Each structure stands twice: as C-alpha cells, then as structure tokens.
C-alpha cells in the first residue's frame, strides 16, 4: 500500500513537471512570435511623426537625412532648412520589404538627421522606433551635438497598443555655448 501511494505521487509529480514544461514552452513561443495573441492589427498606426523645432537663434541647414529603416512619407518631404523659430513635422512610413522583427505588422523605423545651424553649431540625432520582444521601443538618440542642446519628448508612448494614433517624437534644438 505504501509503495503504490509513493508510485502515485511520482506519477503526479511527472504530470506536474510536464504541464510546467508546456507552460514554459508556450511562454517562449509567445516571446518568439512577439506575443501575436495580443495583436489587433488595426490598433497600431504603422507610422511615426517626427517634429523638429529650431530654437537655436539661427537658421538650420539639413546636412543629412538617412532613413536606415522606413522612409519619409511623400506628402511630408523634408525641406533643406528650418528657419529660426520654425517647427517641421513629417511622417515616417515602413518599407514594403523588411525582414526585421515586426509587432502585429508594425515595422521598425529609424531616421538620422544632421543639421548645421550658424557658425560651428551642429546636431546629429536619431529617431528610432522598433518592435522588440513584444513591445514598441522608442529610442531617440543624441549622436553628436556641438554648441546645440538637444531636447526630445515622446508623445503617445504609453497605451500605444490601444489607440491608432502614431508615436510622435518631438525634437527641439536650442543654442548653447558648450
């Protein structure tokens, strides 16, 4: 009797371990597929709005615009300059072909902008929004700034899965003596 109870317990233990294995496997599969179960394809706006405000005291000339992922949408093409006090707004759209990770169809978008603003003032900054491990990450990066202070704000970062308005990254370029 004693030995059959022990046998039963071992069986239960094995069953329990198997269930645990299945749960862990499902969890890993969810991670691997970016948790597609939570996707509502229509709930995510697959675009990023970038705004750049020139508060440097000088006009800024666009030196470089490189979209390593995605592209600037046609109706909002990037002008060659931002006048002092002016704010630009344009939209990044996904590339049609891109095999990097997607979240519910959302593709990575990354744009490097470089401006020179008057004498010896320049700024180079990256706007990077990408799906990673089931989340949308917004990574504004100051790559290099000389005598310009760069500030950024991210709008619609929270709750981005639940409404269809796009992430907005708002950059402001301030004049600086450093």
């Amino acid at each position, binding site marked *: 009797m004693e030995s059959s109870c022990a046998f039963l317990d071992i069986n239960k233990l094995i069953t329990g371990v198997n269930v645990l294995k299945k749960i862990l496997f499902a969890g890993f599969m969810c991670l691997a597929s970016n948790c597609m179960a939570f996707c509502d394809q229509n709930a995510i706006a697959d675009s990023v709005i970038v705004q750049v405000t020139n508060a440097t005291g000088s006009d800024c000339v666009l030196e470089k615009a490189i979209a390593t992922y995605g592209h600037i949408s046609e109706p909002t093409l990037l002008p060659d300059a931002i006048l002092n006090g002016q704010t630009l707004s344009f939209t990044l759209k996904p590339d049609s072909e891109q095999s990097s990770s997607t979240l519910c169809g959302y593709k990575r978008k990354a744009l*490097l902008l470089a401006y020179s603003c008057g004498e010896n003032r320049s700024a180079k900054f990256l706007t990077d929004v990408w799906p990673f*491990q089931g989340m949308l990450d917004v990574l504004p990066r100051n790559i290099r700034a000389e005598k310009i202070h760069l500030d950024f704000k991210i709008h619609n970062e929270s709750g981005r899965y639940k409404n269809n308005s796009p992430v907005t990254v708002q950059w402001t370029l301030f004049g600086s003596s450093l």
Partner: protein
Amino acid sequence: MLSNLTYGESLIPFTIKITNGLPNDCILKDHTILYGHVSDHSTLPTIIHSNETTNFTMRPDPDLQHFQEKSILLTYACGSSQEITLYAGANTVSFANPEAQYIGAKTFYEQNMTATYEKSVRLWNHPALSWTLTN
C-alpha cells in the same frame, strides 16, 4: 586610428567586411556609429586600396545590451566624384530564438558607384555582412 573600447567583449559581435572592387583607392570620408562600438582591437578602415578586402568588428554597448544592436554608417570617396554611404546593422530579434539574427544593409547618396552585399551568420550566431564596392 579610429580604434576603440574593448569592454563587453562577451556580447554578440558583428563583423563587417568591405572589398574595394574599384580601380581607385577608397577613403573614409565620414562615419557615424548609431549603436555599439568598434571592438576586438579592430579599427575602421580609413583607406581601402583597390582590390583590397578589409574587415572590422562591432559589439553592442553594455547600457543597451538587451537590444544587442550594432550599427554604423560609413561614407567612402573613391576617385573623382565617386562616393557612397553604407549602412550596416545587426541585432538579435528574439532571445527565445537566438538564431533569429537580423542583419540590415542599405546604401545612400550613391554617386557614380554602387555596392552589393552578402549577409551571413557565423559560428555561435555571429552576424556578418560583406560589402563590395563596384562601379
């Protein structure tokens, strides 16, 4: 020398190889590291002679190591009025699937030349990208 930090060498490296298939030497005019750093005692190729192949390695920065992102823009000038900007990037898409390495390659501002690329994943899931500069 445009060399570099060698910390964090245990993080997944990314090898970038560049072959100059042009009759002229190519000179590095500009570069922008977007993520990571040049590593493993390698340096950015400042001059690539005609028919020469050179390579360097990048690794992710420790503060963003969960992304495992390494990416760079390189602008080369080769002979008169030939210029190109190359983008090379790599990251690990999912740690649940360590084989899921993403390698990105694009060219920009092509002037009278072009470039082709080949992606590969080496031993231990190390991503690699080979660029060839051509007419």
